[in-house]
């Protein structure tokens, strides 16, 4: 039996600011439908918005009880209806998704695609509200408690916590520095009225990216959603600003009872996705610096000098920032900081071998070409490009990477300016 490996891409506009993208791909045994809603990340609205994806997927009018909905998902072969909140630059992305097996594997001929489409659509447009038009108190109370617990437990994973603190320091005062859930205080004082109003705001002002992927039926989703969005929608402004360096290095140290210290170094590059011509070189420079096990940071700072247990760099093309994360012994903090800067200096001075560039290219392209083998990977890939001036396939991007020259890498490194250094260390001495 010859397997069907054809892929069908389609894109539609379903209304003002409602963009639809589908990739039908029968290699997958599953299908995934997602509705991403994008709004500016603001201190005043973040908490109410962040609660919505969870409230909307908790119950709906067809299944007003949490357990009833859960049972229905079990019957659909362990399908899931889930909410998520993330940040994309200065934008808050609120997502609701339905995932399940493909119709052809249903043992009793169930139309999973239709069920998932209707469930997700119902979650967005027909949430379960009480007679006052508010989300019922029990579900609201549950989600509020759980969000507070999630915020509190962010301290538990020291690596993630340190990264967050480092980003807060680097992006101080910018929307992207805010927590995706809003502040603890804002969550604690949320009212049901505020959340219901936020839902209406979303329907009228959010930018929508709808994605349908895998062994799916895109037309079904289009037909179900078409005509459901309010007319005369006015989109809120989702601009992200990539600031240049502040000209000084901000420093902060937190003391905590930890055995291993964390060192986070934040750089401004001034280059974001808007300068798309320079993007491939910056991404490749980041890979040469600390993106692979043969990168300069890993090979030198970790392996040769044994200064860190982990040491890697990451570039965020929406904010135009580069972050280096490392886990360090306290006695090595200064040495590690110097060694890391030295590696960046090496690239700036053109001390990069042909071999280093080739292996970075191979590694980056390998990662890009793997994206299409995972539904989640494809979704993130296209979602991350929502505000970019152009949309590339992973293969387009791989082709661009191949063209980057040594000179361009050297130039890209010159754009990196250290703006923030965050340290988490043990003990409580000041």
């Amino acid at each position, binding site marked *: 039996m010859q397997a069907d490996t054809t892929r069908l891409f389609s894109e539609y506009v379903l209304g003002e600011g409602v963009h639809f993208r589908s990739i039908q791909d029968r290699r997958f045994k599953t299908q995934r439908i997602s509705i991403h809603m994008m709004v500016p990340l603001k201190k005043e609205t973040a908490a109410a918005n962040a609660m919505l994806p969870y409230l909307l997927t908790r119950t709906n009018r067809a299944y007003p009880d949490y357990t009833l909905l859960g049972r229905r998902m079990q019957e659909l072969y362990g399908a899931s209806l889930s909410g998520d909140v993330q940040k994309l630059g200065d934008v808050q992305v609120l997502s609701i998704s339905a995932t399940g097996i493909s119709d052809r594997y249903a043992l009793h001929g169930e139309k999973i695609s239709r069920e998932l489409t209707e469930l997700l659509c119902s979650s967005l447009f027909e949430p379960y509200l009480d007679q006052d038009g508010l989300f019922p108190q029990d579900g609201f109370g549950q989600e509020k408690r759980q969000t507070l617990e999630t915020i509190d437990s962010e301290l538990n994973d020291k690596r993630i916590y340190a990264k967050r603190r480092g980003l807060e320091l680097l992006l101080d005062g910018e929307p992207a520095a805010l927590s995706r859930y809003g502040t603890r205080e804002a969550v604690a004082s949320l009212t049901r009225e505020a959340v219901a109003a936020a839902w209406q705001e979303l329907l009228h002002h959010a930018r929508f990216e709808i994605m349908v992927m895998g062994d799916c039926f895109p037309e079904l989703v289009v037909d179900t959603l078409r005509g459901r969005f309010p007319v005369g929608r006015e989109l809120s402004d989702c601009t992200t600003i990539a600031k240049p360096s502040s000209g000084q290095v901000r420093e902060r140290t937190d003391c905590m009872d930890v055995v*291993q210290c964390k060192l986070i170094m934040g750089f401004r590059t001034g280059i974001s996705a808007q300068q798309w011509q320079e993007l491939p070189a910056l991404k490749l420079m980041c890979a040469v610096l600390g993106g692979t096990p043969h990168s300069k940071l890993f090979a030198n700072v970790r392996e040769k000098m044994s200064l860190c247990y982990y040491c890697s760099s990451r570039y965020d093309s929406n904010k135009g920032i580069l972050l280096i994360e490392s886990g360090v012994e306290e006695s090595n903090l200064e040495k590690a900081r110097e060694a890391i800067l030295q590696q960046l200096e090496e690239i700036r001075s053109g001390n990069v071998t042909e071999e280093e560039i080739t292996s970075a290219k191979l590694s980056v392209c390998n990662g890009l070409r793997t994206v299409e*083998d995972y539904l989640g990977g494809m979704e993130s890939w296209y979602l991350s490009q929502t505000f970019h001036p152009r949309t590339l396939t992973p293969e387009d991007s791989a082709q661009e990477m191949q063209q980057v020259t040594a000179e361009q890498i050297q130039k890209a490194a010159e754009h990196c300016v250290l703006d923030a250094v965050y340290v988490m260390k043990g003990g409580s001495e000041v």
Partner: protein
Amino acid sequence: MNITRVESIRTGDWYDKIEHPSGLQILVYPKPGSHSTYAVFGTRYGSIDTRFRRSDEETDSEVPAGIAHFLEHKLFENEDCDAFARYAKTGASANAYTSFDMTCYLFSCTENVYESLEILLDFVQKPYFTEQTIQKEQGIIGQEIRMYEDDPSWRGMFNLLHALYHVHPVKTDIAGTVESIAQITPEMLYRCYHTFYNLHNMVLCVAGNVDTEKVLEVADRLLKPAEEVRVERAFPAEPDKIVQPYVEEKLPVSFPMFNLGFKEVPEDGGEKAVAETDILLELFASDASPLFRSLLDAGLINESSFGYDYFTGTGYSAVLFSGESRDPQAVAKAICCEADRLRRKGIDPDDFARAQKAVYGRNLSALNGAENIANGMTAMTFRGQELFRYIDMVAEASLENVQQRLNHQLLPEFSALSVILPDESLTTLEV
């Protein structure tokens, strides 16, 4: 060479199983249209294998804790160059991991598949250890151990294993301790290597964009046939009873965390036992279960942290629950009560049918990715299990058999609770 095609009518997938003349078992699972290929070269050798007897020796050997993990780190370094430098030329993304009962070396790539496979088979077969390289690694692994000391969920898990197990080495950290790894010598590493990295004790599993003939061409060239050395794993006799029902520790966390375990007598129930337990746990504690709902309504758990797992290997078996809770004792009590209720009242047939469908669908979904397939098949092979048979066992499970599992699973008298509490004195200071 003996090549068997293993097919699954239910999922439409198949793979080739090869008994290679070198003694290695090879599994090749093609995914048509896949861009990437994922390969795992694993040995049935994990952190618990610290006491063993070789078939060609008279007496047991005992080695320091953490040696399997230490070996994993050291194998990446050959005499002339390290494996990462070689992979840099193919673009493969490579890694390795050590668990309680296996050590796996892996890569994922979209180009140069067979060149990468050659590197994998080559470096794992070329041990090279010296006093000097070992000393350096002791420093690096020491840092890794310290990093885990700061991880409250890791600490909570091992505190629980200490409360459940008297003597079984599963209670010891996979990486060992700073003291135990300090005792490691080149001779010990060579000895463990030659005992456990015998091809008869290993598996190669390749999934994705891959062709059986081409895999075998590389295998024929690279694999070095060796005399079969059988290893008898010698575990001290572990009592059925737990050590202590409760253990707690204070750490810099802002919300209490818990790990609850139900120890059980290990059985060799194969795929069937695993399938039945997975269904039992789905109907017992998934987010659609009455237990989950009542814990949620009481504000005792949250959806993002609550989870469960059937934790099983040579000489150990337990059902584990974990999560965050303001009152871990209340959670433990509710879980024990619900297990008793199901024992007395019996499982509802509708709950069973739904749970069975859910577990089936999720396993089918897991066949999307080459990574899941290769890692899953490797682990199952070492346990003497087979992937498609497991999926069939899920589809064919009966309510009666799942109900019977409650007679020896989730028994309150064999449970222990480990709690990580916030330490109020360890507040964050800003300098």
